[in-house]
């Protein structure tokens, strides 16, 4: 990613960045990607710390890379830092955005899980977990569906859908190791078959 931007960041700017991510953390129900539009408004439109291209590349690289998708936040912080100087500030930006997006949410989750585990026999706690079960499972399926329909290129669409349906059936009905399937998908794509 070529930094097409030279910015100067004051200490107050770094603090603002950190504070903004602390706030976003509390809003990120269902994952940080739900707050991406707000990040775009803040980083690209309001402060001009990132270019549009850097913002989009951060998300797409993190999606393609192994690991939780939350890491796109680290990449954004890294890019802001690179724009502000070099590797040193890059690491600072990465640390601030990651610490900001994770500290509040992980603390809350840890406390809630601890409380929930201690009171796991309470009727209300049981009802909460059991009542939400079908909803959160449907959310998993919906997430996969949204990812699947993100490819909107009619000419190639049917092959992509065929691959998605085949994968779904194989994983649902057999116990094959998932990495084989990811490898197969990569090969099919590499040779332009899908």
């Amino acid at each position: 990613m070529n930094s097409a931007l030279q910015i100067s960041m004051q200490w107050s700017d770094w603090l603002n960045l950190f504070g903004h991510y602390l706030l976003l953390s509390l809003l990120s129900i269902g994952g940080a990607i739900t707050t991406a539009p707000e990040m775009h408004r803040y980083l690209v439109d309001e402060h001009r710390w990132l270019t549009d291209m850097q913002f989009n590349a951060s998300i797409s690289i993190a999606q393609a890379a192994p690991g939780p998708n939350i890491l796109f936040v680290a990449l954004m912080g890294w890019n802001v830092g690179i724009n502000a100087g070099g590797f040193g500030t890059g690491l600072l930006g990465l640390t601030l955005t990651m610490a900001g997006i994770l500290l509040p949410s992980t603390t809350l989750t840890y406390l809630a899980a601890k409380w929930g585990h201690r009171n796991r026999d309470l009727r209300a706690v049981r009802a909460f977990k059991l009542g939400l079960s079908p909803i959160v499972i449907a959310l998993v399926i919906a997430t996969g569906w949204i990812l699947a329909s993100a490819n909107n290129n009619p000419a190639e669409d049917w092959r992509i859908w065929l691959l998605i349906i085949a994968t779904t059936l194989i994983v649902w009905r057999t116990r094959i190791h998932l990495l084989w399937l990811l490898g197969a998908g990569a090969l099919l794509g590499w040779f332009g078959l899908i």
Partner: protein
Amino acid sequence: MTDLQKAEDRPRPQSLTDLFVSFTLIALQGFGGVLAIIQYELVERKRWLSKEEFIEDWAVAQIMPGPNVVNISLMIGARSFGLPGAMAALAGMLAVPLIVLLLLALAYSHYATHPGVTGALRGMGAVASGLIIASGLKLFNALKKNPLGMPWCIALGSLCFIAIALLRWPLIYVLLGLGIVGFGLAYRKLKP
């Protein structure tokens, strides 16, 4: 308590190192997200959790802010070894993948336009979405033991899927609305 008996004859995380390494390996297999891999590894391969336990933890991970896979890793680590366990699981989920990601970001500008690379990413993306759908379908089978009963589970699940995947309504309203209904139904069926 049958829960206790069930927990005893099942494998568990051995140590903080075991947690860190296990979650690092899970994260590194997660192309296009860790959601499908984490279910497969924890429930089917390692058997640290039953399907039902996974779903219950997932409900908490989903309702709390923050990334679900990070939340559930943290919860599993915490249950085995308290706060240090939570930290070990969290570090496993994030540390090595972060280094890999930075290296990829540095290499990205060289390969971003290579047709083979973009094709491979498209193929892996398609497979990843299939993996996620399938892991959801697998978990749905485990709802047989849910006191709501299958008809209610299918009704609530379908409504949620339609609202999120097809109508693209904001998650927070869907979770709140359907969550209250699900909670109320389950509360009524769980006679004290």
